[in-house]
């Protein structure tokens, strides 16, 4: 799993060639690697933008305003969940509980950086920093 994470950090997503490379490197059957990659939500099997932003929309975050944040981001970026902006910069995804509900609404950038207690203004500021 760690090998796939590191591979994904390089390219942003796991192409078949990349997974075959990992399988070969670890002396595993490629199918065992595909299976792991497709089971866990944080691996990407398709290309994503430079910044993948995953918004938690589970219950606690929704009660705390995640829907408004998601709408704001969709409007601002002009994309829906599961889509990537035309310039390839941003991908927007819907996520499940990230174990940080006290700081909701929140999102995760590229699986690593968590940004919580979001307001539309704070979202704008973070997106501007990422441009």
């Amino acid at each position, binding site marked *: *799993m*760690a090998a*796939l*994470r590191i591979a994904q950090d390089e390219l942003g997503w796991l192409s078949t060639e990349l997974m075959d490379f990992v399988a070969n490197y670890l002396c595993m059957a490629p199918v*065992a690697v595909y*299976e*792991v990659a497709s*089971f*866990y*939500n*944080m*691996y990407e099997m398709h290309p994503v933008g430079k910044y993948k932003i995953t918004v938690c*929309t*589970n*219950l*606690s975050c*929704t*009660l*705390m305003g995640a829907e408004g944040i998601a709408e704001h981001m969709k409007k601002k970026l002009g994309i829906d969940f599961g889509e990537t902006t035309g310039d390839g910069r941003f991908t927007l995804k819907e*996520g*499940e*509980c*990230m*174990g*940080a*509900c*006290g*700081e*909701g609404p929140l999102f*995760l950038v590229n*699986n*690593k*950086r*968590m940004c919580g207690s979001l307001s539309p203004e704070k979202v704008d500021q973070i997106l501007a920093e990422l441009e």
Partner: protein
Amino acid sequence: MANEVIFHSIHQPESWKLSSYLSTGGYETLKKVVMEKMSPEEIINQVKISALRGRGGAGFPTGLKWSFMPRHFQGDKYIVCNTDEGEPGTFKDRDIIRYNPHQLIEGMAIAAYTMGVKVGYNYIHGEIWESYERFEEALEEARVAGFLGDNLFGSDFSFNLHAHHGYGAYICGEETALLESIEGRKGQPRFKPPFPASFGLYGKPTTINNTETFASIPYIIRNGGQKFLELGKPNNGGTKIFSVSGHVNKPGNFEIGMGTPFSELLEMAGGVRNGHKLKAVIPGGSSVPVLPAEIIMDCTMDYDSLSKAGSMLGAGSVIVMDETVCMVKALERLSYFYFEESCGQCTPCREGTGWLYRIVHRIEHGKGKPEDLALLDSVTSNIMGRTICALGDAAAMPVQGMLKHYRNEFEYHIEHKKCMV
């Protein structure tokens, strides 16, 4: 007794550093246990007296669980810590590894000594990368200072601990799925029996406990089980960290004695947001039945009181909902979660979670039929108790709780094709 056991040093700057932990007497208990060769029986006895029950959700007595490990088994054995916190509403373990990681390490080392284990793992939830990194730093500090590694304090006791980073699968919080995941496979739960104490990680005897469970151990051994017990109430020992989220003014983690009235906890969390009225509370994470305000306001926060009220303490994850919440919509979101996270191994769960979601979805969107509520009842009873792991039950219980207390809202939705609130 707030912040007595785990968050005692949270006010210190950089409380996660080894130096901070040492300044509060950290690792002295481990050293004493190892140097004075405290007997494993005595340690287990203290844990039993403390009435510490597993903080991961099921509330199984920890002392009893430890006594299942074959003590004289020669060969590899493991302990595994479950920091795969992904139950909606739960965010306490993240704060333990962010603010007091060394206490978890010390607790695991004492557990390893007790059960004759040399190697442990901590499985950390995928989405909390920054906390995972901090835990890795703490491990390194502990290794350098000689609190982890071979022949600790010059004795013949060795313990090595490694962190494992998950990658986004709620089901890996289930202990046998977690073991599969550490072994590098998809996280699909195993049939039990055999139980992990006889056939666990890599087929070896293994004990799995929650982060908060392990982190409570140093206190118990240092102060005695009785002192821990007295922080809570009989059969519900100690303090417990409650994660409060949803419609409150000050969401966050609160470590308080077991048996504290819910009303006090709500007050600590700043009360209900915008001066609204409390409608309902899910007291133990998304998998437990919801309780209406009238009932929860009379409960104390402990295993026994909440189970008497028809719900569960679970992982202590309190989701607060005010009068503006539509229960159909809330349930729709939770049902989607279980549908999405079912690992698909057992038919009642794979198909049943899909049915639950689709039915609640159509009720929410004005397409519900009068017979749908009976259908929901029947699908939940067909899931309960018929699956390999408890995710099936976890998906069915919130539905049952909602239908028990808020059936009228569902009926209203079906009849009027819109919301009551």
